[in-house]
């Protein structure tokens, strides 16, 4: 593992073992995240991006489990690490997550300060007073008044809660931060504020950031590298410049075309539905909806093929 | 719930094992309630509190169920009647022998002598006669003067167990064989309490008076003497009753009532009361909550305060005091229970109704000009209706339990019908628990629990099938 690689994911598989069948939510995904790099993970609902995000901390909720592959952080394989070690050494210390704060990600019965102090007390052994001091110090960095340490979550607005989530994710100075839909359910102005905050914090704290969202427009603002997921597989990855300028995979093209433009008339969309992940089709998973589909697509799954400088696409068109 | 027809509901319901068990139990209870006149005779049910009727029936008093013997591997004596031969004679002493073969592991619970004097015009009603009884036991011993009394009673029925003199005669007899035992019972004052009939039929020896010896099986001869003072006094019939040591499905109570009859007839009150209280009170509560939620504003506020007031009144003390002041009938009780129960479901229903109210189609209906009543009844209520079925099911056990509790406490001062609670009240008054009459205590309570359980199971299954996901 190179010294400038923060995260190395190899052939990761995450399955949900449900009563109605095994849902193969993530099927053989591989990518690398460089130190200080920002990676965007985009795709429609149910494509597996959130599951992928959770799996990086081995936090997939049951009945989900990591079914195969490796996740290397700092030389350690997260995928096979026992729970106790993960809890002590990895979670929040090396890698943390910003959940959708606008929802129920904060415990309603504990004060903000207590929730910020919690990881400090658990992982760094600080006393409650010391931890609260730390909490008060970090709040201005996300643009919040330190006095809110005594408030309860229900007293804050959605944007404020999101900032708290960000502060909480950074409080142990982790190497990697995953932001899962950080701007969903926020209004546009607050969205912009949060994105700017993420950008400046990324530089200040020197973290590698993974931004997960279905909203491609915010990706353009923040990420250097962009990966597109569909039906549990990664279909295209590359620098965001390359991707936005010249998307190669038909799905990426369709996604970008779907973003409504002021100058164009009419709405584009990709017809059809994603496949049932309990019974994924053989061959390319996008075949049924692809406008360029041909024979081989239905028979064999395309591997990642180099289509640009740093751009790879999983499509037989580029064989 | 949308689009679920009755058939779908039934099919879904049957998927839950608990629901099936619940229906099964319910059917048993309904069967009891409906079949009461058939299973046990109608008269017995209607005359449960008419003790005279039960005296006539000559059932043994306070005995366990007939099947106990099977489990214990012992044979329990059954009730047997032995008519006595009335001697044809002109003498003043009429003597007859009645033989009884005591072949059981558990001897009779009592021996009853019945003497009927014929109606005769020229004998004054105050003419007395004497009754004497000697008992010849199979081991050759004799107990003399077990009965020795003078009476004018034309229809005489004597229970040896209850006659002090008989008791003393038997005790005196056994004293010679068990001096230690005699000392013991005298010192501890147990002469009123020991089972003299068991001693009558048990082997002599140490501990006989403490009922520690085995029963003496064999032929017993009861030598009965009627000594008349007027030659014209004629006997109509003589009879000896050996009261069984066990009887029936659930045994008998201390008044000689067949507890099975009580249990079967008690099902009626339980079901009727439970269902009526549950259905009416839930309907009231649901309507109350729905209307309160829909009208909103200060009407809602006031209605909620009223409900909170109503729900804060402790049920039992008030029920007892009211029942005490005004003699309760079963219908009064039902009414009272409804009055105390309707506030229960209001809060939950209200929050459901509030959610429904925010739906767009309600606004649409209002825009079209539908009246409040129409909106509530045609749009909101039908959505809540499926949930109310589960509520009704869950309300029934509470009603049955409350009635049982009130009847238990009030006993004879409570409602007049047979209810399981009242049977338990009688049991408590007769110290059934302390004297070990488990057959009197277990069945009524068990029935209360089972009926409650049936509805809980049905309610849980209904809830899983019908509960709209509005609250999730």
């Amino acid at each position: 593992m190179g010294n400038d690689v923060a995260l190395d994911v190899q052939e990761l598989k995450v399955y949900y073992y449900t009563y109605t069948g095994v849902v193969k939510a993530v099927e053989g995904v591989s990518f690398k995240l460089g130190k200080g790099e920002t990676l965007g993970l985009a795709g429609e609902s149910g494509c597996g991006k959130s599951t992928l995000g959770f799996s990086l901390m081995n936090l997939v909720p049951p009945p989900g489990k990591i079914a195969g592959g490796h996740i290397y952080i700092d030389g350690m394989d997260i995928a096979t690490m026992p729970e106790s070690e993960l809890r002590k050494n990895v979670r929040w210390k090396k890698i943390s997550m910003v959940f959708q704060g606008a929802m129920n990600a904060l415990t309603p019965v504990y004060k903000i300060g207590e929730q910020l102090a919690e990881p400090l007390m658990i992982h760094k052994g600080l006393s409650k007073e010391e931890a609260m001091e730390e909490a008060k110090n970090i709040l201005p960095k996300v643009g919040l008044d330190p006095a809110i340490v005594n408030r309860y979550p229900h007293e804050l607005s959605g944007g404020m809660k999101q900032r708290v989530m960000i502060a909480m994710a950074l409080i142990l100075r982790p190497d990697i931060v995953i932001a899962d839909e950080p701007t969903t359910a926020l209004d546009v102005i607050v969205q912009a504020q949060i994105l700017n905050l993420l950008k400046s914090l990324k530089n200040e704290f020197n973290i590698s950031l993974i931004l997960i969202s279905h909203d491609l427009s915010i990706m353009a603002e923040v990420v250097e590298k962009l990966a597109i997921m569909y039906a549990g597989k990664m279909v295209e990855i590359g620098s965001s410049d390359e991707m936005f300028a010249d998307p190669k995979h038909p799905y990426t093209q369709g996604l970008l075309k779907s973003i409504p433009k002021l100058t164009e008339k009419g709405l584009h969309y990709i017809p059809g539905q994603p496949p049932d992940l309990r019974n994924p089709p053989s061959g390319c998973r996008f075949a049924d909806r692809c406008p360029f589909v041909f024979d081989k697509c239905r028979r064999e799954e395309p591997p990642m093929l180099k289509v640009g400088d740093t751009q790879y696409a999983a499509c037989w068109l580029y064989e | 719930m949308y689009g679920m027809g009755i058939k779908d509901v039934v099919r879904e319901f049957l998927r839950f094992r608990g629901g099936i068990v619940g229906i099964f139990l319910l059917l048993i209870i309904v069967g009891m309630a409906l079949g009461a006149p058939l299973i046990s005779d109608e008269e017995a049910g209607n005359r449960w509190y008419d003790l005279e009727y039960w005296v006539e029936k000559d059932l043994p008093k306070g005995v366990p169920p007939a099947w106990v013997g099977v489990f214990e591997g012992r044979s329990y004596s059954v009730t047997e009647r032995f008519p006595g031969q009335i001697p044809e004679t002109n003498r003043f002493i009429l003597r007859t022998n009645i033989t009884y073969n005591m072949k059981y592991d558990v001897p009779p619970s009592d021996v009853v002598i019945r003497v009927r004097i014929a109606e005769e015009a020229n004998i004054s009603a105050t003419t007395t006669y004497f009754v004497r009884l000697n008992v010849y036991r199979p081991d050759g011993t004799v107990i003399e003067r077990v009965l020795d009394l003078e009476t004018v009673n034309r229809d005489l029925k004597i229970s040896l167990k209850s006659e002090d003199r008989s008791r003393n005669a038997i005790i005196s007899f056994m004293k010679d064989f068990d001096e230690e035992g005699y000392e013991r019972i005298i010192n501890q004052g147990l002469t009123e309490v020991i089972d003299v009939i068991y001693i009558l039929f048990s082997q002599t020896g140490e501990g006989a008076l403490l009922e520690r010896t085995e029963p003496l099986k064999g032929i017993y001869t009861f030598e009965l003497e009627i000594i008349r003072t007027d030659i014209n006094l004629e006997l109509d019939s003589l009879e000896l009753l050996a009261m069984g040591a066990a009887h029936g499905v659930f045994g008998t109570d201390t008044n000689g009532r067949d507890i099975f009859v009580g249990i079967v007839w008690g099902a009626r009150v339980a079901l009727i009361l439970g269902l009526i209280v549950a259905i009416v009170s839930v309907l009231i509560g649901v309507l109350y909550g729905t209307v309160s939620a829909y009208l909103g504003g200060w009407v809602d506020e006031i209605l909620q305060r009223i409900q909170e007031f109503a729900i804060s009144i402790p049920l039992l003390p008030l029920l007892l005091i009211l029942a005490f002041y005004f003699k309760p009938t079963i219908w009064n009780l039902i009414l009272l229970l409804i009055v105390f129960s309707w506030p229960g479901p209001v809060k939950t229903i209200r929050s459901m109704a509030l959610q429904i109210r925010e739906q767009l189609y309600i606004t649409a209906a209002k825009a079209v000009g539908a009246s409040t009543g129409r909106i509530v009844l045609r749009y909101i209520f039908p959505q809540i209706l499926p949930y109310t079925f589960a509520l009704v099911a869950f309300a029934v056990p509470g009603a049955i339990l409350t009635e049982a509790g009130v009847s238990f406490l009030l006993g004879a001062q409570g409602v007049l019908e047979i209810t399981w609670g009242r049977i338990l009240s009688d049991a408590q008054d007769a110290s059934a628990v302390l004297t070990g009459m488990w057959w009197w205590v277990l069945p009524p309570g068990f029935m209360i629990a089972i009926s409650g359980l049936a509805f809980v199971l049905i309610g849980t299954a209904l809830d899983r099938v019908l509960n709209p996901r509005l609250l999730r």
Partner: protein
Amino acid sequence: MALVRYLAFRVVNALVILFFVLLITAVMMNQYLEDQIRAEIRERIAQEVYRNPRYATYTPEEKDRLAANLTLRYEQIYGLDQPYVVRVLYRTVDAMMFDFGNALVLKSSTGSPVVSDIIIEAIPRTVLLFTTGTIITIVVGILLGIKAATRVGSFLDRAISTFAMFTYSLPMWWVGMIFIFYFAILLKIFPSGGMVSIPPPEDPVAYAMDVLYHLTLPLIVFVFVNFGGWSYATRSIVLNVLTEDFVNTARAKGVPERRILYGHVLRTASPPIVTSTTLAILGSIGGAIITEAVFNWPGLGRLFYQAILNGDMPVVIGLTYISTFLYVFAILALDFIYALLDPRIKVGFGGGR
């Protein structure tokens, strides 16, 4: 402060309820007392007029007139001539001061026939049984409920759910009868009733142990019948909370499972658990009353039973009022606890800037 406002509201509510109950009690007491007094007056008149040899020579009309006058005099003495409202008001004041007159039949253990003495003596005994039982039930119920929620579908979980359903319709007092039969009569491990042995031990420590010994069986019955409901409610609510996002957040932060469960989850689940079980607790009071009668435990329940059996009206009236008083007080206490547990009530609904 929102908390103060909420509590003030609940206190006012409680006072209103108490006032109404007070009124009803006063009316009943008044009715009862006046019936007594009138009967007494009638008896007096009969003695002093109709049976008095002094007036034997009077004509019936003269006697009647004399009787009427005397009756009026007596009514004045006893205050029966005052308007109804005033009379009821006096009773209300009496009731507020817990003055219910004297009992007809019953006496306190010190021999006093004063109703409030009798009742006050019984209160701590009921509190001992009921409160201890409730606390144990809560602890056992919640612990089991949490265990069941964390092992959904396991044997323990299904057993708890089935057990809860089964005990929902069990009459507590009947279970008491059965337990007495089995443990006290058959096995002879526990006493069959009462609070102390006869004669009670002199030494205070031995006395306390004796009370504890007598307390055990009714306590077991109480917990046995009640903890199922608590477990089930806790399990359902905790299950719901476990699916909330903040649980995942806590896990991601590396918080140990125990702290997540007993800290984040349980604290959040407490307000709805309190709500859903408040009604159950208050409902179990009725059963507890009857259970006291079964166990001959000399508390309020048995007192009620005895008073009714003996037709001792003043005691019944006094008991109804006091038990309602305690009941309302208990509800208020629960409201208070709920407010403390739920920060949305404690701090009020903010909304942020």
